[in-house]
């Protein structure tokens, strides 16, 4: 031990500048080498395809008519942006995302407080809420679909509900079931993110407020909410972007009929069902831009804080 250390220390002192920069260089190289495979894998299926989508979106490319091709300019974009379908699907997506995230925020906050305050059963309740989080979205969608579908469900048999109500035969009732399924599936995730923020609040603040005679509501609005602002914004950002991708539930429940299409459903139908790569790619690029705009707005709201950065 004492034999091994002095030579190193001596060498370091001898050529300090040279040694440090060599070491830093080696560390830099090692760092890049370790990151390279993951960076390559991440770009392979994101940057390259979106670039390719951009190229495809400027062409006439329909796999049903392989002979018709060529440069189309902005025709595909004009077709998409001037269609009622794009705008109504964008409206549907925004509606589903905003309503479900708003409901999730309220229920998620209550859920986080229950998990935070519960003396007993903490483990049980966390295990229970992880079931909706972990369950396959398609499975969750089928559970809700079959519950409401008149051909198999029990919901229409409940009191106060019309026995013959065709939930998926009408736009707003179909939307309501889609939103309910989304909320059930993703509220636990929201609640766990909020719980993480909740546990960082110093209990002493509540004690002090209590001594000063603050009511429950005052403690919530003056202590909990302001201190949880970063956690709430992060949770909202993640869920909002996730909600904008809504696809699985709609695919299972209505396949977009009754005017319930989301932008992802429109993109899928163009690309995979109708095999119109040009038009579908234009939809892909537009979806990408929409997500980019939402992310930008939220990151501005978050300031310089992004999770994981110190």
């Amino acid at each position: 031990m004492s034999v091994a250390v002095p030579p190193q220390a001596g060498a370091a002192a001898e050529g300090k500048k040279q040694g440090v920069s060599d070491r830093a260089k080696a560390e830099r190289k090692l760092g890049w080498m370790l990151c390279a495979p993951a960076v390559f894998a991440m770009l392979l299926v994101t940057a390259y395809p979106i670039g390719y989508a951009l190229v495809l979106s400027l062409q006439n490319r329909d796999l049903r008519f392989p002979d018709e091709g060529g440069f189309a300019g902005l025709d595909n974009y004009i077709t998409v942006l001037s269609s009622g379908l794009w705008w109504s699907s964008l409206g549907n997506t925004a509606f589903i995302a905003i309503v479900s995230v708003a409901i999730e925020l309220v229920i998620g906050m209550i859920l986080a407080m229950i998990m935070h305050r519960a003396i007993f059963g903490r483990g049980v309740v966390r295990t229970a809420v992880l079931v909706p989080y972990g369950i396959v979205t398609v499975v969750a969608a089928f559970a809700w679909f079959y519950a409401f579908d008149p051909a198999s469900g029990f919901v229409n048999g409940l009191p106060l509900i019309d026995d013959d109500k065709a939930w998926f035969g009408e736009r707003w009732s179909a939307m309501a079931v889609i939103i309910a399924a989304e909320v059930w599936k993703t509220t636990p995730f929201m609640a766990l993110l909020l719980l993480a923020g909740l546990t960082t609040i110093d209990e002493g603040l509540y004690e002090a407020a209590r001594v000063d005679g603050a009511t429950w509501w005052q403690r919530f609005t003056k202590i909990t909410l302001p201190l949880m602002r970063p956690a709430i914004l992060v949770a909202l950002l993640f869920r909002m972007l996730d909600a904008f991708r809504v696809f699985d539930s709609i695919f299972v429940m209505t396949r977009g009929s009754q005017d319930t299409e989301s932008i992802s459903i429109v993109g899928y139908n163009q690309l995979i069902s109708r095999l119109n790569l040009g038009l579908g790619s234009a939809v892909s690029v537009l979806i990408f831009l929409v997500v980019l705009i939402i992310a930008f707005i939220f990151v501005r709201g978050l300031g310089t804080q992004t999770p994981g950065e110190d």
Partner: protein
Amino acid sequence: MGERGTKEYTFWTVGLFAVIVAALFPVLWLLMLSFKTPATVGDGSFIPKEWTFENYTTLFEGGLDSPLLRPLINSVAIALIATTIAIILASFTAYAIARLEFPGRRIILGGALAIAMFPPISTVGPLFDMWRALGIYDTYLGLIIPYLTFALPLAIYTLVAFFREIPFELEQAAQVDGATPTQAFRKVIVPLAAPGMFTAAILVFIFCWNDFVFAISLTSSDASRTVPAAIAFFTGESQFTAPTGNIAAAAILVTIPIIVFVLIFQRRIVAGLTSGAVKG
């Protein structure tokens, strides 16, 4: 929190039970539905009037040609392979970011976050075209690659959060005590890093297990179709029977691994899900 017997205590207790019921009720409903006979599946009752296991057994009739066996094997294999590769690559990256000084760390973390938010549907069309040209459309590889891409940010964030907690001085201490660098890494760092890697692996596996968009877009047959995609394309035994019971049974089967994970690793999953966010 109040004492036992106070109003506040009652309030939180009632809330607790309401949450548990709400979280589990839809799964219980699917379970009930999966035990109903074709004759009673439409009767609208919650509890089956006639019980049967047939919805499960018919899923596996005919071995590899059965409706569910092949997709189940595909799901397990694809999720396991993608998870393994993702954790290995993410460990390298997370180790470098947590421990080494080099320019570009912030860009890599920021880029990973951007990819976590990337809309998968935007890549489906180009991938469909590229995979057909490369001959990996409707293969395991064709699904493993996109799963890897979208799982990596999740794995990197989880692992960076865990690796930052590891006291790396211990490694030097072990070397001072006479361990070789390899020994120090294997006997000191690996055991400390293993729980984090395991947690990240669970989250990544759940993510791959869950995917639907890629599974229906980049496959065309049971050669590589995973369970969520297979369920969505189930057809009834004849044109006149809906596959409700079969779908419910398959849905229950695909949920069992998730429930097992959640029961055994509840603490780890919660820690993993919130690790990245707390730091924000």
